[in-house]
């Protein structure tokens, strides 16, 4: 019996990441990148943000928000490089860069989110 590949796991992460990115990234970018930064809306002040951030659920939420979309990017970008630039022969390098990048981003997120006093 042939060993089944682990592509399903990568696809599951890609799908979950794509869904999280689709649902949440637009509003986050719209608010923090524009509405609050340019004063269109009165955004939460520093103290209020820290208060929200300290809540354990927020940390989990932000971990999901940061990690899964990175795995979505990793999978999609990998195939864009394979098919768009036709460099599939570099697949080991590409896979390390993409999925490795997502893992590193996740590690950074964990460190940042759980080292807040």
């Amino acid at each position, binding site marked *: *019996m*042939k060993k*089944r*590949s*682990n*592509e*399903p*796991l990568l*696809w*599951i992460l890609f*799908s979950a990441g794509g869904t999280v990115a689709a649902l949440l990234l637009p509003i986050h970018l719209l608010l923090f990148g524009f509405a609050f930064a340019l004063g269109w809306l009165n955004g939460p002040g520093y103290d209020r943000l820290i208060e929200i951030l300290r809540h354990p659920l927020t940390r989990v939420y932000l971990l999901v928000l940061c990690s899964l979309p990175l795995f979505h990017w990793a999978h*999609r970008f990998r*195939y864009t490089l*394979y*098919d768009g630039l*036709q460099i*599939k022969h570099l697949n080991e390098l590409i896979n390390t860069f993409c999925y490795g990048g997502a893992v590193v981003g996740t590690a950074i997120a964990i460190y940042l989110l759980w080292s807040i006093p």
Partner: protein
Amino acid sequence: MANRIELRVKRYHPENDQEPWFESYAVPLRKEWVILDALNYIKDHLDGSLTFRWSCRMGVCGSCGMDVNGVPKLACATFLTDCAPGPVRVEPLKNFPILRDLVVDISDFLVKLADAKPWIIRKVEKPLEEEYLQTPEQVDAYKQFSMCINCMLCYAACPVYGLDPLFSGPAAIALAQRYNMDSRDQGAGIRMDILSQHEGIWGCTFVGECTKVCPKHVDPAGAIQQYKVTSSIEWLKSLVLPRGAE
């Protein structure tokens, strides 16, 4: 309406040519004529050496697939008036080696089709006297995917198939799904072993062009995405259940 239309047909004679080249022909522009009629006119009256495949001339055999103005089409289903005023570029299906003129080498597709095992697989055969009964809902579950005529327009439209020799391709996967969804079939696990390998189905990036060009509305892109979901669920199950326990 003008009474002629120009066809620019790609020619390739392996005994003479290093590369394909284009030849122009002026054919009558008749309102009921399709590309296939134009090609037969060329062969009968203008150039008997023109080589192309065709059979039923009514969109059910899948023989006459070619690239018309860069888009994969059935020659018997593409009206000249829709391509007017022309010139109309007629080329062999993309992503396949060219054997001669508009005839391509489809052996890769046939290998991949066989890999998908497009037939009913039973673990236990029923005795001949017993029927396999199906409700209309059970037929509905796979009927759309059974409409495939193996015309390979989807392979010509799929950029991944053109770039990745390991990719099984839209029709093969859609046909695998057609049997997986058939209530009489018990071979889903066997097909999964073959197709769920690297690039079997995973090379698909859901471009969606295969579904757009399919003349029988099979929706191979949908079949492949559904297969990815099924594969993923099976993979998750295999984490908690020992292999072979189904």
